[in-house]
């Protein structure tokens, strides 16, 4: 395995625009998906012979379908406001990781083929042909974007750069160029039901084992029910919650909340995954197919409420897309949001006094909160603007005594991506992931130094997996990383033992 050396840039007291390193990350490429993986999703198994014409045709089709894409490709005036807002640019110094430059890899081809001036005077307007070299750049740099949309917050035209990355990936899949990481996982969701490939029997065994642990810890019969017909709530959560640490502590936290509040709930083996990687590759058909399992499960189990666990992009898919993909949900209980985030559910119970906490249980922690990109910039919670920022923080304040914010330009709508989102949470891109985490690590270091922060809470499985892997490169301990419901689980009162 010819792995690139993985290096972490030095932490600085505040973000500094790096000295440009042209082409520094050009050779960093995610493993391509093999023919078997590609064909299982209906994509060509390898780069097709007439890839150039097919790619241009597909781009034309997307432009016809998505007016937004055309607007985004036309509207950029190269003002430069986005250049230093991308964590991958800040971490790598590669100018093609400036959001404007990354978009221009597609925009220059768009201009060449779809604008009058680009057809007749390409050199004057920065229009270029789609050569093999350009395609190579697409593959490298559109997989060094986590579709986190921080740059879009600063764009005076509001260009949604993630949509451009998604379009580029969709064009590439159409001509046979997909990544192993995303596309193998999507195949597993169709075949087994979740990203991990955790079969129903293994899921049930894992859940029983966790029930045993909860009994030992609390002395109470806290259940993790699966496929229980007639339960009030169907919980759809990332499969990492069953499998990995620290994810599983949040799962135990959800179980304790349901137990303490007396809400009957169930998981489903059919929809044993909240994630929807169809979004990452910009493929609406895949997104819909993945989401359909959720509708099938809730109809089959007869649940009246639909709740989503701690997963960032899944909450975007659920909040912003489920209604059109798999709705309407008129058969669900209208007294609750559909779908409802687990944080909304817990917050509501706290507001109503239905659950209580011993905050001292978290006194060993000085907590900060990392806003996950898709929750922060692509969704909402509660019935007030900014609820997606306030509700998780309100929960943390209710369950822990010591809470500290990182600096304002690194949180809320300006949050920095963890560095592993958007379908690049793979070992072959570890160097990109480590470098992309730099701005978040700098913000974290500042509150570690000033306030002794020793726990960074979050509500996303990708963020949790990414940070546990990359924080050691920055000399932090991986036990600093955990979920909001991990803190909830530590502090919740469950009655006498």
């Amino acid at each position, binding site marked *: *395995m010819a792995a690139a050396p993985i290096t972490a840039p030095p932490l600085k007291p505040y973000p500094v625009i790096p000295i440009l390193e042209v082409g520094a990350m050009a050779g960093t490429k995610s493993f391509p998906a093999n023919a078997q993986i590609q064909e299982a999703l209906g994509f060509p198994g390898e780069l097709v012979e007439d890839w150039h014409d097919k790619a241009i045709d597909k781009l034309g089709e997307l432009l016809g379908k998505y007016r937004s894409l055309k607007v985004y490709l036309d509207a950029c005036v190269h003002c430069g406001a986005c250049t230093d807002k991308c964590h991958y640019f800040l971490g790598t110094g590669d100018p093609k990781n400036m959001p404007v430059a990354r978009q221009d890899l597609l925009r220059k081809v768009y201009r060449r083929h779809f604008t009058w001036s680009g057809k007749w005077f390409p050199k004057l307007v920065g229009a270029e042909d789609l050569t093999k070299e350009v395609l190579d750049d697409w593959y490298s740099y559109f997989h060094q974007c986590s579709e986190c949309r921080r740059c879009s917050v600063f764009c005076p035209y509001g260009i949604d750069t993630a949509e451009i990355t998604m379009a580029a990936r969709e064009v590439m899949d159409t001509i046979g160029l997909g990544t192993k*990481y995303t596309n193998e996982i999507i195949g597993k969701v169709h075949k087994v039901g979740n990203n991990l490939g955790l*079969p129903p029997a293994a899921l049930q065994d894992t859940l029983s084992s966790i029930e045993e642990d909860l009994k030992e810890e609390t002395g109470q019969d806290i259940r993790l029910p699966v496929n229980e017909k007639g339960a009030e709530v169907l919980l759809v959560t990332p499969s*990492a919650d069953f499998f990995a640490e620290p994810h599983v502590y949040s799962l135990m936290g959800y179980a304790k909340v349901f137990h303490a509040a007396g809400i009957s709930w169930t998981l489903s083996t059919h929809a044993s995954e909240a994630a929807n990687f169809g979004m990452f590759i910009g493929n609406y058909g895949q997104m819909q197919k993945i989401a359909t399992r959720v509708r099938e499960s809730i109809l089959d189990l007869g649940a009246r409420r639909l709740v989503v666990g701690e997963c960032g992009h899944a909450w975007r898919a659920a909040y912003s897309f489920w209604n059109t993909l798999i709705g309407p949900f008129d058969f669900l209980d209208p007294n609750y949001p559909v779908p409802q985030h687990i944080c909304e559910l817990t917050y509501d119970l706290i507001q109503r006094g239905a659950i209580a906490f011993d905050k001292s249980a978290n006194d060993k922690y000085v907590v900060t909160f990392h806003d996950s990109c898709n929750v922060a910039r692509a969704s909402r919670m509660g019935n007030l603007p900014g609820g997606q920022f306030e509700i998780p923080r309100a929960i943390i304040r209710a369950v822990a005594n010591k809470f500290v914010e990182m600096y304002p330009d690194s949180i809320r709508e300006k949050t920095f991506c963890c560095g592993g989102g958007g379908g690049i949470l793979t070992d072959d891109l570890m160097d990109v992931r480590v470098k992309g985490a730099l701005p978040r690590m700098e913000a974290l270091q500042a509150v570690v130094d000033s306030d002794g922060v020793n726990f960074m809470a979050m509500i996303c499985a990708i963020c949790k997996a990414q940070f546990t892997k990359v924080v050691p490169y920055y000399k932090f301990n991986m036990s600093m990383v955990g979920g909001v419901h991990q803190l909830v689980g530590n502090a919740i009162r469950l009655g006498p033992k």
Partner: protein
Amino acid sequence: MAAIEVNGKSYEVDEEGYLVNLAEWNEDVGKLLAEGEKIEMTPSHWEVVNFLRDYYNEFQIAPAVRVLTKAIGKKLGPEKGNSQYLYELFPYGPAKQACKIAGLPKPTGCI
């Protein structure tokens, strides 16, 4: 596709060095895969690897980290039944590194 060679026999591995056909696995293959990970196999390492293989045979997937730590704690003593101990054995993460040595496919997803 790449391959590794043990005792004159060639074994196919994927881009990341995971054994393609897990039925072909034997201890010598495990040892060579461990060398590639710069891990010296001790009896404790083999406990983990053997548990992974048994679990995989039953469930067609590696065990969750929590299930693994509990099993190891039962076998090797409660002070070793935690993920910190597993990370000491397999510094890049028990799920991925120990699976590779055990000849199992790499767990995928948000882990």
